[in-house]
């Protein structure tokens, strides 16, 4: 046991780095609101950087110049009403400037009116269930088998050999590009949260409550996310995969699933 632990630790710290793609920042995402969220995030970030440069700059200058070892004599002042008023007022102005665009985005995020289609996502320990309200399609979406095999404690499969380790499912959520998809979220047991960073959506799935959110993906592709609310032992193993496809492909997919003709595609024609 202890030997294994020691060996394991040695293994960890000699494992070397850099084998997979990594990101430093939030993805821009593929919806209008994900881009807006990204812009807000970057705006606040740069405001913080600017404040940081000023405050830390003054502080570092002081640390260099006002040290006893370089012969500084301490000044006597203990307050300055003027300075204090100024550095209370300036942050208020900066905050107001940030609050306004944030509030505007907030309003748009909450506007789930007139959706093109509605999907009910229900959290289970530990998988998702999707029900397309108009198309008559429903299915469970669980962790894909290759990940399932590689995730075992003491397993022999190297996670790096698995494509999209822990971020792949057997049945992804398929939606048409350009459609306003309303997502109704609830849970069958404990709290879960549905999070796909590139759609800029995170919403809790709560037993006894139906939560509402929406997205309109503007490009096709596969977008991956995870449950974001601790839901028990396999919380890390209930990913979310959204495939955004052309309306035709969506219709074909619905038919193979044995559902009705999708409302969105017919409206579009």
């Amino acid at each position, binding site marked *: 046991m202890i030997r294994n*632990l020691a060996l394991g*630790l040695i293994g*960890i710290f000699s*494992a070397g*780095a850099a*084998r*997979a*793609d*990594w990101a*430093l*920042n*939030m993805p821009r995402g593929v919806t209008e609101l994900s881009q807006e*969220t990204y812009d*807000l*995030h970057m705006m*606040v970030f740069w405001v*913080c950087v600017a404040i*940081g440069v000023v*405050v*830390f700059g003054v*502080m570092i200058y*002081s640390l260099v110049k*006002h*040290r*006893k070892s370089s012969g*500084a004599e301490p000044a006597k*002042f*203990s*307050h300055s009403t003027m*300075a204090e008023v100024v*550095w209370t007022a300036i*942050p*208020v102005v900066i905050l107001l400037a*940030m609050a306004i665009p*944030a*509030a505007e985005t*907030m309003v748009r*995020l909450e506007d789930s009116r007139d959706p093109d289609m509605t999907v009910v996502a229900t959290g289970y320990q530990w998988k998702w269930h999707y029900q397309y309200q108009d198309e008559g399609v429903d299915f469970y979406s669980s962790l894909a088998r290759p990940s399932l095999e590689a995730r075992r*404690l003491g397993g022999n499969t190297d*996670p*790096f050999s698995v494509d*999209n*380790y*822990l*971020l792949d499912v057997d049945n992804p959520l398929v939606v048409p590009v350009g459609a306003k998809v309303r997502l109704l979220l609830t849970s069958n047991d*404990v709290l879960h949260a549905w*999070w796909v*960073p590139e759609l*800029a*959506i995170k919403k*809790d799935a709560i*037993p*006894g*409550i139906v939560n509402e959110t929406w997205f309109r993906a503007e490009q096709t592709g596969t977008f991956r996310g*995870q449950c*974001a609310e*601790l839901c*028990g*032992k396999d919380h*890390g193993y209930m990913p979310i995969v959204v495939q955004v496809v052309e309306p035709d492909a969506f219709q074909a997919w619905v038919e193979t699933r044995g559902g009705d003709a999708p409302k969105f595609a017919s409206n579009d024609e």
Partner: protein
Amino acid sequence: MVSTPADLHDKHDEHEHHGPAKGIGRWLFTTNHKDIGTMYLIFSLVMFFIGGAMALVIRSELAQPGLQFVHPEFFNSMTTMHALIMVFGAVMPAFVGLANWMIPMQIGAPDMALPRMNNWSFWILPVAFGILLSTLFMPGGAPASGWTMYPPLVLQTGDAFPFLIFSVHLMGISSIMGAINIIVTIINMRTPEMTLIRMPMFVWTWLITAYLLIAVMPVLAGAVTMLLTDQFFGTSFFLAAGGGDPVMFQHIFWFFGHPEVYIMILPAFGVVSEIIPTFSRKPLFGHDSMVYAAASIAFLSFIVWAHHMFTVGMPLSGQMFFMFATMLIAVPTGVKVFNWVGTMWRGAMTFETPMLFSLAFVFLFTIGGFSGLMLAIAPADIQYHDSYFVVAHFHYVLVPGSIFALMAAAYYWLPKWTGHMYNEKIGKLHFWTSTIFVNLTFFPMHFLGLAGMPRRIPDYSTQFADFNYIASIGAFGFGLSQLIFVYVLLTVKKGEKATDAVWDNPKGLEWTVPSPAPYHTFDEPVHVDRTVAFPQNNP
């Protein structure tokens, strides 16, 4: 009646026979604020290492993708227990320990106002944490639902459940008694010339913190009691099937939880506000506005709780309110940081270990404040929420925030407590290794969170491997660095004798008594030299 500090100094030599009792009884039955303060501090250090060991289990498992060491359920127990132990066992008791030691000495009081209750409020803690730690060995394992104890998940806890609730109750009782004691002491036992506004910042921040504790610990007790009755007595406060509301728990919990985070940082503000003036050789800049800022932060802490819940599905107006209120906290917090910089400005700084920890506090707490401001922006928070960005944020304000302030305080007052100077070289080594490794641990977590890694997961996709690996190296480095602190404590008695003032003309009554501080100080109301005790009015 009224004596000067100099008289007092002589008198203490005559009072040597009032020393502590002998043997274990001294510690079990003591009502002496210094003994109790010492016990609080040692207890919190022990808890710091236990909680730290759990953090290292977490970081070992997360060092690379795949499961190497522990099962997911045990991993969840580790995150839960790590948080409960660090919050309630390490940070809070450490600040109470400082309060016990320093508040009577800073306000010229002979002891805490309620010494027997003081003994009780300490001795409840080992019992509470004994119970909590014993759950590790219970069927079903230790609590694994996160320190936030959200239902319905927390109701799936095994045999540990009632023990979790009971230990939280005990921690709450201890905190409430400690807070009452601190308030009564500060209000009633100041030496007559020390008006409220003249009090040192550490005393002020603790007074405000104590009010926060009294206001919110009963709320936590109520919340966990409702969990208990939901589990065992057929109520449905939080159970949707019985007409209850799981989200209500979150509102109640965070009504406690947000003031709680200020309970852990306000005394840190106080500590830093004591240390920076001493080593800048200048009075604290804007003492009075610092008091108002701390009070504003405390007030605002009651009306921002739902910013922890932007994803639960609140009405738009609710989200707006909590976003704006949260952003507002940046104003008084900014005032604090600016005033510390104003204190340093045109001072004559030296960089002993307490000052180094305090300066790192100002830098790194401010970084945590920046990420806090980002988190306040509700639409962006929807992306950050429950990701490693949040983990990075709260560890920046708690580790190089609260913990660094505690380290600064320990180095600052250690000579007063022990009568000996610690080893400055080793202290600086402790500082530099801690600072390097704390950043190595927590800074990459910002990137992980932004890239989409959720918190509280035992395993992750391979794209998160590199930064997790770096964070794990940092965590082991930080953990080992803290052993240097233990070495400092164990060898402090070998250091040279400390003078009464210890530092270069520090301000405050604690520096007028001998080092080590006699078992009883300020038996009589002391006449204070105003330039010593109230520097803010007498530059």
